[in-house]
């Protein structure tokens, strides 16, 4: 059974605007998928809807995690099942240190895994694991005592997203443009994080605008996503085709030119 399976998935905003217009996708254990699309195609909306953002409603189709429908679940329940979203724009929580947040989140996940019984991680064990993970991801130690994402550089935020992923050990990680705005070193760290997470019982979905990250982590499956739909699927070679030809080749005529953006902009917003 796939870990994550989307069947004819439609997503709309509160005002009824449909953003995702029927997506079929299955992530099996051990698989890394890449969902590639231009700005405004609805990639981030899909990611938010999967994680349970209240502003993105699943209006049709199915979203199954381990065979279980998650459309009606809160974001916390989805996280407790083992779904993780690395945010494109992680939010700051002033006054809460990375370490304190990390421990609270880990304990929430552990509690769910223990069937609702409190199962807090012993502090020495937590400290050891976190410091090891930070060192591995080349995150300076002092970051643990800083307030979560408060005044962090773009690169620091993304590394801390990967740190959270490494610590929480989800079964499916969705990375929403985690690669955008990163230098090569940071990109390698993100790629390392994904490769180390994905094993015989876990999978990942990398959402990206660029082919760049795929130089460091090889997805077995590439999906081209345009205007709320997957328009083409293939293996890693598809990413190279995109790199060479751009998204124009995959776009309906009406969109080409009108909707196309340069592909070099950073921090682009998604609808």
């Amino acid at each position: 059974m796939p870990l994550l399976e989307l069947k004819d998935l439609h997503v709309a905003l509160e005002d009824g605007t449909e953003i995702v217009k029927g997506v079929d996708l299955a992530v099996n254990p051990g698989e890394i998928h890449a969902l590639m699309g231009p700005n405004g195609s609805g990639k981030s909306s899909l990611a938010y809807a999967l994680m349970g953002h209240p502003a993105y409603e699943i209006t049709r189709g199915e979203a199954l995690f381990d065979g279980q429908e998650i459309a009606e679940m809160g974001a916390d329940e989805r996280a407790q099942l083992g779904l993780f979203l690395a945010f494109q724009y992680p939010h700051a929580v002033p006054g809460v240190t990375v370490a304190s947040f990390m421990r609270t989140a880990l304990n929430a996940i552990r509690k769910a895994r223990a069937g609702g019984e409190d199962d807090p991680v012993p502090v020495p064990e937590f400290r050891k694991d976190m410091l090891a993970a930070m060192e591995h991801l080349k995150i300076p130690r002092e970051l643990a005592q800083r307030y979560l994402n408060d005044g962090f550089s773009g690169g620091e935020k993304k590394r801390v997203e990967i740190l959270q992923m490494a610590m929480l050990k989800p079964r499916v990680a969705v990375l929403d443009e985690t690669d955008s705005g990163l230098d090569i070193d940071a990109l390698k760290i993100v790629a390392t994080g994904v490769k180390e997470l994905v094993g015989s019982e876990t999978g990942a979905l990398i959402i990206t605008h660029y082919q760049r990250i795929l130089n460091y982590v090889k997805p077995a499956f590439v999906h081209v996503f345009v205007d709320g739909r997957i328009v083409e699927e293939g293996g890693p070679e598809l990413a190279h085709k995109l790199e060479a030809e751009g998204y124009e080749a995959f776009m309906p005529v009406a969109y080409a030119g009108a909707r196309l953006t340069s592909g070099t902009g950073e921090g682009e917003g998604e609808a």
Partner: protein
Amino acid sequence: MAITETEVVGGIKTEYKYGFHDPEDYFFKSGRGLSHELVAAISEHKSEPDWMRKFRLKSLDYFLARPLPEWGGNVAEIDFDNIFYYIRPTENQAKSWEDLPPDIKNTWDRLGIPEAEKNYLAGVGAQYESEVVYHKLKKELEDQGVLFLDMDSGLREHEELVKEYFGTIIPQNDNKFAALNSAVWSGGSFIYVPPGVQIEMPLQAYFRINAENMGQFERTLIIVDEDAYVHYVEGCTAPVYSTDSLHSAVVEIIVKPGGRCRYTTIQNWSNNVYNLVTKRAVAYENATMEWVDANLGSKLTMKYPAIWLMGEGAHGEVLSIAFAGQDQHLDAGGKCVHVAPNTSSIITSKSISRGGGRASYRGLLEVAKGAEGSKSKVVCDALILDEDSRSDTYPYIRIDESNVDIGHEATVSKIGDEQLFYLMSRGLSEAEASAMVVSGFVEPITKELPLEYAVEMNRLIQLQMEGSVG
């Protein structure tokens, strides 16, 4: 002690953990209502000197003559005739927890006071209704000349010292509720720290209301002599009742040259308590006064701890938290008055409102003519958790000196859906996520608390949040 029905009902409705009450078996309980006879009887009962009896009676005249304040919160509904002004639960003060009546001892155990005393306190005073029923100070501090007594014992045993300062920082006619306290005061703490004595561990007082329609009027006087230091911590809780109780304290503090006093409050009254408190300190040359004032419970709180900077180089800080939930109005803040040159002050206020609650910052910053070279910074931040709740800011600033450095910042923020979603996406429930945002918001203040109190504060915030979100 059996769990009472009130506790069960209260617990369901409010998540308030301290809403239980003990059966009443009191040594003395006054009738309801206020009169000159009652005030004279309290003084008589306490065998007070004549000057104190006169002070009380005069204060009652002031109380009766003054109108109710029309600003702040709604105090018009307080039924002064329905309140018990004096209850003495036990005949004598205990030196050991074991000497208390079982119900009362049990209450203190449930509040964790004897345990805290063992672990991290230098002294404890435990007030139940009108009287301090337990009091103890570590022997080595006694030997250094530190006085830590309940106010009544302070008056009996150190009358001259009390007479010199009592009512000098907060005059008996300062405001209506200070006048009321001056008339019917009972209990509270009397502290004197001799020159140069630094008390490392905090002294703690705990105030517990038990009876319905109780009025608790403790009176505290703290004198920190030259180059001495004390950290005084107070906590307070009350049972949940359907009718109201009144808590109206007066706290006067004198910090002599080079001395430092930190006064920390963690207030957690049940939501049927009117909490109308006057707190004021004077700080002389190079002295430091710090109020750390965390207010979570009560129906209405009006409290603005004040610092008068009387000597050159004096420093004052007010750190205020007000967390108003459903049916609560917390009007809190601070006052700093710069009288001497080169004085400095910081007021930091964090107010939170949720569930239709109303939290206000009300503060005064005043720099008198001649207080040149003074610096002050006022920062007030408000966090509003939902659409039904309200936050107000009333910053009063009066500057009569030109050579000063004054800063004022205010922010209002709402807890964001995006922020909650981010935290929930890591497995935290909505209540946990909200509590985390609130804890972070007040962190600049909780980090000033001793660890045990910071933990308690965060736990209280979590309790406030539980049941508040669907």
